[in-house]
């Protein structure tokens, strides 16, 4: 008993993570199943993909030879690729900006106390939980060119005179997809930002209030600067995710009309599984990967700068 007490007292003096010293390497063994699964399904295939991108692997003709950077040269002069790249960037910027701004507004509203706040917050999880394929079909039906209820509602309030062929027209299709994505993802963004807002001590905006700051000033000069790192991190994750958009485009338009909604993921998918060009498709997905790294770096530099400002 006395020994146990001494032991526990000794243990208390060590930093928390040292307390479980067992002297055998087996805690690391507990990580093996999880890390093995992640390595086998994410890390190894990425390396294999890089290797494939240097080959002309084609499943249909069963060719498989090393071609060096030929795929990448072809990619640079591929107008389909640049077309999809531009659409993806347009979609990524539009949805990230809209979702961050609208999410911020909703978060500010939900930070207020009002009756039924829990209900609104619960309801906001509904779009997030619905399978994206279902969301796609749902918006396909809502925005249907002939019998869509959106056309009907806009006509009833007099905003439209005739039916608009939303995702059937090259000018509007990408925007219809942006709307569907905003619907699906903004609530989640709002919840993340709400979490960030609630970590800001109330005493700070109270101090500003006593100094006579208006609610706008309290938001702009107190809350927003403190929220900036959260805002940027959330926007970064959102942008990286939006850049990979696949389900919505594949189901609503399939990339059409006239390639006006073709994005990198859907183009890559078609090159892989319709044309069976695994080498070229892998070069395309590597190009996507590289773009994502640049997006992450861009945000990363910005975020670091904000953190440094905050530290000073």
């Amino acid at each position: 008993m006395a020994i146990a007490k001494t032991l526990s007292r000794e243990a208390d003096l060590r930093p928390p993570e040292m307390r479980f010293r067992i002297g055998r390497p087996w805690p690391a063994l507990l990580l093996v199943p999880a890390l093995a699964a992640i390595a086998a399904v994410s890390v190894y295939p990425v390396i294999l993909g890089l290797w494939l991108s240097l080959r002309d692997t084609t499943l249909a003709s069963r060719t498989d030879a090393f071609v060096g950077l030929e795929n990448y040269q072809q990619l640079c002069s591929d107008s389909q690729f640049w077309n999809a790249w531009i659409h993806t960037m347009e979609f990524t910027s539009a949805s990230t900006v809209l979702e961050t701004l609208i999410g911020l507004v909703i978060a500010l509203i939900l930070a207020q106390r009002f009756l039924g706040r829990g209900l609104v917050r619960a309801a906001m999880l509904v779009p997030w939980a619905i399978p994206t394929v279902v969301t796609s079909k749902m918006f396909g039906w809502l925005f249907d060119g002939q019998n869509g209820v959106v056309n009907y509602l806009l006509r009833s309030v007099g905003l439209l005179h005739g039916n608009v062929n939303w995702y059937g027209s090259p000018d509007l299709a990408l925007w219809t997809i942006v709307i569907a994505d905003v619907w699906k993802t903004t609530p989640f963004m709002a919840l993340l930002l709400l979490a960030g807002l609630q970590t800001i001590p109330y005493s700070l905006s109270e101090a500003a209030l006593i100094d006579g700051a208006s609610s706008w000033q309290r938001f702009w000069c107190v809350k927003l600067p403190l929220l900036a790192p959260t805002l940027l991190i959330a926007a970064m994750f959102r942008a990286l995710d939006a850049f990979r958009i696949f389900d919505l485009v594949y189901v609503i338009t399939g990339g059409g009309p006239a390639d006006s909604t073709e994005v990198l993921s859907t183009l890559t998918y078609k090159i892989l599984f319709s044309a069976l060009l695994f080498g070229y498709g892998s070069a395309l997905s590597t190009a996507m990967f590289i773009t994502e790294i640049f997006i992450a770096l861009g945000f990363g530099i910005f975020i670091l700068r904000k953190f440094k400002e905050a530290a000073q």
Partner: protein
Amino acid sequence: MSVTRTNQQTAARGYTFIPWNRVLVYACALFVLCWSVGPFLWQMSSSLQLDKRLVSGNPTLLPNPITFGHFINIFVGKSFQRYIVNSIIVAGTTTFLCLLFGAIAAFALARLEIRGRFGILGVILAVSMFPQIAIVAPLYMLASQFGWLDTYRVLIIVYLALGLPLVIWVLFGYFRTIPQSIDEAARIDGARPLAIFFLITLPMSLPGVVTTGLLSFIAAWNEFMFALAFTSDINHQTVPVGIANFTDVHYIPWGDIAAASVVVTLPLVVLVLTFERHIIAGLTGGAIKE
């Protein structure tokens, strides 16, 4: 002066001052509510309406007359139950394995001595950021080499690896909140770490485990691209692939699609609304307070 003080007092309790501000808050809240549930309500209503009512050019939210024809169509005509069974097998197994492997890993990272644990966590997070389209081609080739195309196995393994990062991160956060002294007391009583894990840590973080399980179930249930690439027959295709392929030769069966959407989404919505508080806490690292 007294008016200002009252305003400040109300403000201090978190209320805005001027009544029309309150009106604005309620108006916005109502808008957010309608915006969030409106499209799904319309989908539910559509699933109960006759096709000829849906294309009448005069849509109504309340179905009149109510018909269950679309539900009969999808189950009798399109064997939709086959996709549901596939999805339950895939998502259920994925969730179980995710929780098992993920919880053990999170326990090791949070409670045992592991060198470079934050490095490991960082790598796990970075891996989860990889674009999935970059791994679909190599995985397809591997799966076809193993003869694993059109099996539950390949989907389960892929979803397991894709779900693990979130499970590990969320459970790591939960396990860290349990006081270390509890482990110590058990250790002094002679419990080995695995016993501590199964008998103490896991039961104590049950809400966290339930939430994480729900998150990985939803992720596996909803995944589309890998299921589309790796399965080509109805015996292994999951619900999203089934719904995506719902088209008739001559027209788009919006009513049937709506019925299928309702069938696969309603259980999720009920689950999410039941566990709302835990899910939000899990997703935001416990930062949202009441």
